[in-house]
C-alpha cells in the first residue's frame, strides 16, 4: 500500500469545504471520503504479485566500464498495470537511474534497462526488484519487493595495460627479429641469416659463412616456453589501504601486466591467490584465453584478515613446478615478513627457482618520514624511519638469499615488475 502526491492534493483540497464550513463534521466527512477513495484505488490497482520478472544476462565488465541491467516484466494478471519499478543494486554498482515507469496491458511484456557504472571490483549483487502499481485514479497503489537474482562480475581495471606497448617493444628488441642481438648464457640459438650492416661482428658464424659463400650471422632469441607462477597474497597485509585502493589491487594490476607480457613472450603463466587457503587458481590455460581467465579469476578475490600460510605456498609451488621457473610472490615486505615465514620460504624456493618478491609500498610513509611541523610529527617521522629500516633489513635478507625484490609505490609496481621480468629474461636467468 502506498499513496501518491495526488492523494496529498486530495487531502489539501479538503481545506476548501472546511474553510467554507468550519466544523469538525466537515473534516470527518472529508477524511472518510479520502480514505474510501484511497482504499478503492489501491484495491483496483493491478496486483504486483501477478507479474513475472526475469533478469537478462549480465556479461562481465571491466571496472569503470558501463554495464546494463535489463529486466523483463510480463503482466500475467487481468488488469492494465501502471506504476513504477525499481531495480535496486548495491551502491557501488552505480545504478543511478534505476526507476522506470511502467504501463503494461494484460498479457504483454516490457523490458527496462538500468545503466550501471561499477566503482568496485568483484561480484556485485542486485537487491530486490520493487514494483509499485497504481490504481486507475493514480492516488494510491500497491507495492511489492521481489528478489530477482543475478551477478555482475566486475573485472580488475587493468589500468597498467598502458605500460604494455613499451614493454613489448623492449621484448622485440631482445628478440632476434630485431637488429639487436643479445648474446648471453641463457639465450637460445634461433637461426642463421645474411649479414647486414650494423650486425655485431662477433655474431658472424664463420663455419656457415664458409659453406654458404656469403656472410652469415647467428641470431638469438630469448628463451621461450618458460613457466611463470604468480602467487598473489590475499592475507592480512593485502588489506592495507595505500592511497585509495588496497594493496591487493596494486598486486592484481602487476600480476595482469606481467601475465600479458610473459604470454606474448611465449611463456606460460599460472596464478594462485592464497592466504590460509587457495582463493583462486589459473593454470593450464591456452595463451589466447589466459588474460580473460585470469581477470575473471581474480575479480572476486578480496583481502582477508588472516595470517598468510607461506608453508602452503611452498607446497603449492613444489606441486605445480617440476623444473626451474619464475616464481613471483606478490605480497608485502614488512617487519613481520620474517615471523610469517615469507623470508624462509622465499629463500628455500630461490634454491630451485628464480624468485621475485613484489611489494607495493605506502605513498604516505615518505610524507610521514619527512614530517617536521610539530613534535608529534618528529615521533611519527622516527616511527616511519624505524619501519623503513626494518623493511630494508628484510629486503637485504631476501636479496642475500638470491631473491629479487621489487618495492615500488602502488602505481609503479606493475611496470617495475615487468621491467624486472624483462631484465631477468635478457640475462637468461629464467
Amino acid at each position, binding site marked *: 500500500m502506498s499513496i501518491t502526491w495526488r492523494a496529498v492534493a486530495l487531502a489539501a483540497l479538503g481545506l476548501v469545504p472546511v474553510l467554507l464550513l468550519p466544523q469538525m463534521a466537515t473534516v470527518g466527512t472529508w477524511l472518510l471520503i479520502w480514505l474510501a477513495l484511497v482504499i478503492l484505488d489501491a484495491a483496483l490497482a493491478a496486483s504486483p504479485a501477478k507479474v513475472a520478472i526475469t533478469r537478462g544476462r549480465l556479461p562481465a565488465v571491466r571496472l569503470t566500464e558501463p554495464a546494463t541491467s535489463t529486466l523483463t516484466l510480463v503482466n500475467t494478471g487481468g488488469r492494465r498495470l501502471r506504476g513504477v519499478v525499481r531495480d535496486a543494486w548495491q551502491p557501488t554498482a552505480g545504478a543511478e537511474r534505476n526507476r522506470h515507469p511502467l504501463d503494461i496491458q494484460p498479457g504483454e511484456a516490457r523490458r527496462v534497462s538500468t545503466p550501471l557504472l561499477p566503482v568496485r571490483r568483484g561480484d556485485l549483487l542486485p537487491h*530486490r526488484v520493487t514494483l509499485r502499481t497504481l490504481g486507475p485514479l493514480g492516488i494510491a497503489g500497491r*507495492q511489492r519487493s521481489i528478489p530477482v537474482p543475478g551477478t555482475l562480475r566486475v573485472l580488475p581495471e587493468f589500468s597498467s595495460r598502458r605500460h604494455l606497448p613499451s614493454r613489448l617493444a623492449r621484448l622485440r628488441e631482445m628478440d632476434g627479429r630485431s637488429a639487436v642481438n643479445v648474446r648471453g648464457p641463457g639465450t637460445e640459438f634461433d637461426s642463421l641469416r645474411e649479414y647486414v650492416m650494423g650486425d655485431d661482428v662477433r655474431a658472424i658464424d664463420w663455419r656457415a659463412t664458409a659453406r654458404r659463400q656469403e656472410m652469415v650471422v647467428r641470431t638469438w632469441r630469448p628463451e621461450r616456453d618458460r613457466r611463470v607462477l604468480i602467487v598473489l597474497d590475499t592475507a592480512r597485509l593485502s*588489506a592495507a589501504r595505500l592511497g585509495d585502493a588496497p594493496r591487493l589491487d596494486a598486486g592484481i594490476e602487476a600480476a595482469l601486466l606481467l601475465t600479458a607480457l610473459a604470454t606474448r613472450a611465449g611463456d606460460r603463466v599460472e596464478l594462485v591467490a592464497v592466504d590460509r587457503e587457495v582463493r583462486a587458481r589459473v593454470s593450464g590455460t591456452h595463451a589466447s584465453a589466459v588474460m580473460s581467465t585470469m581477470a575473471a579469476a581474480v575479480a572476486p578475490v578480496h583481502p582477508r584478515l588472516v595470517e598468510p600460510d607461506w608453508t602452503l605456498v611452498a607446497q603449492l609451488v613444489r606441486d605445480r613446478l617440476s623444473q626451474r621457473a619464475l616464481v613471483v610472490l606478490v605480497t608485502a615486505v614488512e617487519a613481520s615478513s620474517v615471523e610469517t615465514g615469507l623470508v624462509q620460504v622465499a629463500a628455500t624456493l630461490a634454491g630451485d627457482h628464480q624468485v621475485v618478491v613484489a611489494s607495493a609500498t*605506502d605513498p604516505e610513509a615518505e610524507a610521514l618520514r619527512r614530517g617536521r611541523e610539530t613534535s608529534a610529527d*618528529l*615521533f611519527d*617521522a622516527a616511527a616511519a*624511519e624505524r619501519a*623503513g629500516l626494518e623493511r630494508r633489513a628484510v629486503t637485504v635478507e631476501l636479496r642475500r638469499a638470491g631473491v629479487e625484490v621489487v618495492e615500488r609505490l602502488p602505481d609503479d609496481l606493475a611496470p617495475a615488475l615487468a621491467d624486472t621480468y624483462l631484465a631477468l629474461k635478457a640475462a637468461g636467468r629464467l
Partner: protein
Amino acid sequence: MSSTDTATSAPTIVARGYGAGERGPETSTAAGRRRTVTIVVAVVALLLVAVLVAQLTTRRTSDVAYAPDNPDPRGARAAAQVLEEQGVDVTYVRTTAAAIAEAEAGSTLLVLDADTLRPEQQQAIAEVEADIVLANLGGGSLSALTDRIEIDSYTQRASRPVDCEDEHAVAAESITAGGAVVSGDVETCFQAGESGLYATWTEGDQTWRVLTDGWMLTNTGLPVAGNAALVLRSLGAHDRLVWYVPDPNDGFGTETLADQFPLPAPVVLQLFLVGVAIVLWRGRRLGPVVVEPLPVQVKASETTRGRGRLYRRAGAHAHAAAALRAGFVARVAGRVGLPSHAGRDQVVDTLARASGRSHESIFDVLYGPPPTTDEGLGSLTQALDTLESEVQRA
C-alpha cells in the same frame, strides 16, 4: 480452531546473520510481512501498558507551592479543603487567561505572587470585576495592578495583635506573619512601623485585600494563631473562589503564531491531516535501502602513526633519535659509498669527507648524547636534515 492450527499459524521470526564478506540471504516478502505484524502488535501492547502504568501512578496532588491541591508543608490544600467544606467552589488556575475568564463578578480572585507578573498580566487582572485577594508579595512591582499600595519594607515573622477596625482582622484577633509590608492610602493592619501585613480597600463594588505573607495560607501557617480566621474569611467572602498560582512560563500577552493567524480548529485539524498525508506519501520508500557489504581495509600508515604515538606517550626521545640517526645513515650510505657493516669511525670519516665538516661536529650529530626533550629531538632532526643536504650537495 484446534491447538495445532494455532501453533502452525503463529508468526515466527527467523534471525539471519551476515557472515564476513557475504550477503545475507533475501528474506521472503511473507516473512517480512509477518515480522511487520509482530512489530506492530508489540508496539501497540507496549503503548497500552505505558498508558496503564501512567494512569495508575499519576499523583492527584501537585507539588506547586501555595497550590490548593498540594498537601506538602508549602502547599495550601488545608485551606482549600476547609473552604470547600464551607460551600465555597474553589477553581485552581495557572494562567492569566484562565484567571480572568473564571473571575466574574460575585466571586473572589486569589492571586499569589502578584508582584512577579508581567505588567500586561497585572493590567489584565486589574480589569476583572471579582473581589481580589493578593497574597505572598515579594520584591517585585505592583504598579500595573494597583497604585493604592506599595511594598516598602520587610519585617520578621512574629505574632502580632490586631490594630485596626477591619472586621476580618478583628475576628482574627492576632496573626503570626512576616515578610514584606505594604503601605498606602488604605486601611492597613498588623502594622510594623508605618506599613502593615494586611491591607484592604474598596474600589466601587470591588473589594481588594492584601495578605503579604503567603505562609499564612500554607498547611503549616494556617493553624497558627488567628491566621486561619483571617485567611478563610478573606477567601470565603463569596461562594466562588478562583485560586490563581502564576506559572512563570505563561505566555499571556506575548504574540504567538496562532495569535497572528487565528485559524478555526477544524482548519488546523485538516492541515494536520494534510501533513499526515505528506508523511505517508514521502515516508513509503520504493523498496528497502540497499547496504554495501563493506570490505575490510585499514590505512597502511595507521600502524606507523600508532607507533609514533607510542614513542611520544612513552617520552622515548632517545629511541626516536636512534631511529632517525640510523635511518639517516642507511639513506646516505649508498651515496657516499659506505658498506653496511661500517663502524662509527668509518662513518664519521666518510661523512666528514663528503660534507666538508669537522669530525667532531658529525660525531656529535650522529653519536652524541641522545636528546631528552622535544626541543632536543627537534634540533637533532634539524642537524640531520642539514647534514643530509650537505652530503647531497657534495
